[in-house]
């Protein structure tokens, strides 16, 4: 069975900017910068396209298939390790993949804001009203 991933919402939020992507993990306090290639893979995963399909669709002269396979698999593994994406059940066909050449996905991690994250987990309140918390 092919592996599909989806963004770990609502703990993870993301926003594109000039082709790159900024991803913030609200729970861990870490944030990430994804280059164009990484942002593109993120968007395909978000559409429900499997990791295997993304790897298979890579094109380029003299491409080292093993290296492409390892790089993309390792990138997707990192997204899971960092809880930026989680496993999903979706399994769509790769219908509209732009046939541009392979570029190495790069993700940069920043953890310098973790000290700012002094939040207790946000509580939802039960019907009994403030300050009673809803059952988890």
């Amino acid at each position, binding site marked *: 069975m092919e592996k599909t991933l989806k963004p770990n919402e609502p703990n993870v939020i*993301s926003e594109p900017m000039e082709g790159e992507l900024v991803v913030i993990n609200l729970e861990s306090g870490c944030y990430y910068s994804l280059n164009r290639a990484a942002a593109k893979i993120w968007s395909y995963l978000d559409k429900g396209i499997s990791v295997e399909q993304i790897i298979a669709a890579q094109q380029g002269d003299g491409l080292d298939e093993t290296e492409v396979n390892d790089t993309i698999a390792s990138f997707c593994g990192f997204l899971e390790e960092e809880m930026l994406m989680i496993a999903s059940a979706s399994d769509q066909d790769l219908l509209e993949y732009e046939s541009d050449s392979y570029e190495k996905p790069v993700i940069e991690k920043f953890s310098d*804001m973790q000290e700012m994250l002094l939040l207790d987990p946000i509580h939802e309140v039960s019907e009994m009203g403030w*300050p009673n918390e809803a059952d988890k």
Partner: protein
Amino acid sequence: MNQLFGIGKETEQWRRTTIALDKFYVNMHFPTDQSQAIFLRPFAHLITEAQSDADLNLFVNHGKSGEKPLKAWQHFENDSSDEKKLHVYNKDGQHLLYNHDSKVLTGYDSHEHTAYYYIPSLDMLPFYEKAAPMRMIFHHFAKSNGWSLVHGASIGMNGKGILLIGRGGSGKTTTALSAALAGFEYLGDDYVILNPKTQSILSLYASGKFRWDSETILHGIEKLAVNSKDEEKGYFFLNQKHVNLEKKLTFSGLVIPSIGEGTETTFRRIPAAKALLVLASSTIFQMPGSGNKTLRNISDAIKNIPVYEMVLGNDTEMINKQLNELIKGL
């Protein structure tokens, strides 16, 4: 939420002041002359003629020293700890936040367009709550208008404003205060509001905070301080006598400063994605309840703005000269 914050029907007798943020009005209600005086100082430049119909009604409540605090406050205080300073509770558009560090309980009801602020005694207020109070309330208010309350300083020239962003210690506050004291237009040193619809930056607090050791760069800054060195940072309030305090500037540029080693100050244009990364991370982790909407608002506000990286030299005159040239060219 009225009951939770100890607000009864007698609020008609309370002191009311209206402040204006662009074309939006906030009616602030205070139970005593003392609280009115304390909390209005940073908003003094925004005070406008009284409005009976406001976009937000904000009720401040407090007890007296030695008096028993409100029951709800006691609950949150007992439930909090030094380790986790902020406690956030959400219920259908209503938000409660208890800050264990400042001892302030705030509430925001987006349906009723009402906000609440409570501290058992005014004596308990830390310096940062006197310099820049009610951040969580103005974060929610900004969000409800499609604006963003962001962590950054802002100065300008001839109506063109730049936003200085970065973590504490990056030089943004020192740069902004030095420029303001040299005659630049000034909107704020730590928190300002971005309005993506009108591509403008709005001032919220007419105050400035500084590290006590920055006297070496900002000569005479200590004289402006309204507090003593017992507190972590010095703070002061600004008015037209000190600086060109403005309420709004056109958002024309974004600058990410960092402290360099020599005397020379340099600028270079960088991609906007870097600005989103810096601004979103330093803003969102400080504003409980931020999420995709806040990130999208920040992105909308900065997407067409030129971004520069600025390496600061140790010559403040040179920094101001370079800033002047940069703003002129925007």
